[in-house]
């Protein structure tokens, strides 16, 4: 079983603070981490490999600094990593990113059976790249997977989360899935893994390497663009009271009455 896991480097929101004056994010000095959902994607890939044999290849698109995340992935025990980086990729939206990752997988891991993505990246929250890559490669997709029920070299059965419950879905392989946090518990890197990761050479792939159509990558290949960024208005009618002699309960009761809950 040849498995590809696509990951994204994101700012660590545990370290992001909000500037109380301007109500904006203080981003300076914020370290970068593997997107939390993608850690579970790597873990699931490793677990399937341990069961069925094969390889796990981690692919990531981004600036050269993404290398550190790929080394982290290596320390967890993945077999191979590919860094897809080029100035020409800058400004890519989800469509251009999907094309770029799809092209990379097609060229370098063409025999892959399963592609795993995290549900979404915590900095963009779009959840669009997984389905976009699956479309480029023309393979089935199942999103919001909470459990891989069964996997054989030919097919996969997953449990996916819906608004009103779950659904058990079967698909032939190759296929792509996106996974939720609850799917597994992520392992810690081993000492051996860390040593290996430190000395590994990271494979770097550029727009030229993947023979990308320059009209489909980066800003040029991105139909969507940000026209405006603004801070959401702060709530107008905030009422903060100190609970004394049941004043808190009274305030909640009157609020709930006002809202016609009780």
């Amino acid at each position, binding site marked *: 079983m040849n498995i590809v896991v696509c990951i994204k480097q994101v700012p660590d*929101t*545990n370290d992001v*603070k*909000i500037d109380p004056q301007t109500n904006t*994010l203080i*981003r300076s000095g914020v370290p970068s981490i593997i997107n*939390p*959902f993608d850690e579970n994607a790597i873990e699931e890939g490793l677990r399937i490999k341990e069961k069925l044999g094969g390889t796990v290849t981690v692919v990531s698109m*981004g600036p050269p600094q993404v290398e550190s995340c790929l080394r982290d992935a290596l320390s967890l025990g993945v077999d191979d990593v590919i860094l897809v980086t080029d100035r020409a990729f*800058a*400004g890519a939206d989800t*469509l251009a990113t999907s094309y770029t990752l799809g092209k990379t997988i097609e060229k370098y891991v063409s025999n892959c059976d399963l592609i795993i993505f995290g549900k979404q990246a915590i900095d*963009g*929250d*779009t959840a*669009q790249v*997984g*389905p*976009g890559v699956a*479309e480029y490669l023309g393979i*089935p*997709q*199942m*999103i*919001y997977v909470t459990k891989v029920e069964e996997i054989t070299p030919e097919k996969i059965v997953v449990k996916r*989360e*819906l*608004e*009103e*419950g*779950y*659904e*058990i*879905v*079967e*698909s032939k392989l190759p296929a792509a899935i996106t996974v939720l946090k*609850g799917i597994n518990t992520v392992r810690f890197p081993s000492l051996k893994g860390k040593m290996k990761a430190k000395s590994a050479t990271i494979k770097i792939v550029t727009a030229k390497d993947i023979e990308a159509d320059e009209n489909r990558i980066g800003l*040029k290949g991105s*139909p*969507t*663009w*940000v*026209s*405006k*960024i*603004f801070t*959401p208005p702060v*709530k107008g009618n905030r*009422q*903060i*009271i*100190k*609970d004394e002699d049941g004043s808190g*309960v009274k*305030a*909640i*009761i009157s*609020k709930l009455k006002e*809202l016609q*809950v009780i």
Partner: protein
Amino acid sequence: MSKQILILKDKCKGCNLCVKACSFGAISVVEKIAVIDAAKCSYCGACEPACKFKAIEIKVDDIDRSSFSAYKGLWVYGENRDGVLAEVVYELVGEGRKLADKLKVELSVVIIGDKTQNLADDLFSYGVDNVYYIENKLLKDYDTNSYTKILEEAIEAHKPEIVLFGATSEGRSVAPRLAARVKTGLTADCTALDITADGDLAQTRPAFGGNIMATILCRTRPQLSTVRPHVMQKAAKLAKKGKKIELKSTIVEKDVVTKVLEFIKETRENVNLTESDIIIGAGRGVGSEENLKLIHQLAEKLGGVVGASRACVDAGWIDHFHQVGQTGKTVHPKIYIACGISGAIQHLAGMSSSDIIIAINKDADAPIFNVADLGIVGDVFTIIPALLKSL
């Protein structure tokens, strides 16, 4: 879209004002001159007016609109299960009607499934002009490939300028697949929509956990968006007649590539964290699994469900299914009562768009109070039992 951002070196004083204005951390000052990191810049334009020395210039190529006139009308994706439309469809119809009126175009709903014919009359009564439908037993369960194929063929044949999807498990699966297939733009999880002076769809969505809002435009047609449920107002009833149009499709069995073996409807407790009108959120301050019973009781009394911060889930007090926040669910109930939740940015990301937030916390400086409509500085274990008694 070809965009360019220029720093005019003779005008730049290296004052750092643009660095502060940038939400993306894309500007730094090197040797008293601002430098843009192209990999981080989103060309949003926030820095341009912030510069007092007019040293920043953003050049935007005009969008090529020549092909746009072929696309007309606003579509809503009619997500349904077993012949019942999802709630979000009525919200999209409500919002879609307003946008369609602004554009002076027709509003249509496209319905794919095995029991779709009878849904049309209901939709007409909510102000829908056309219902495009396909009814086929192969389409009983959602399958990304076949559903995408039908939508692709329908778009090719009828050319809508906008298609809105609910940002649900199904909408967020089919919309990106479709966008990639027809090679157009898609904006995820919008919370506000409008039409610009140029007739483009202005799609506003929260970014970075709702701390900033971004308005996104699309330079291709059709323009696709997924829209967060419970944000738009449900359509009003109108006495109206519409047109039913059957979609022609070449769909055959082999187009259906995933097979639903089983559908498991969750019991009330677990379900609908994302659909619930009232959520009682439990945080680290609740202290233990035992104490969480109080929260469950309160939820039961108020007809709500229990949500939890990551701290609660990590401590093993409650299942991950209940987690609200960046790595859990995004919720938008009418009322969110945060109990012993400090309000870490990751949690706020999942619940700050709730209509009314009531927070109870011992710490008067807890960030949760910044988003609360009513904040009670006090002890959860005094307040909740007293509250339960008075309900």
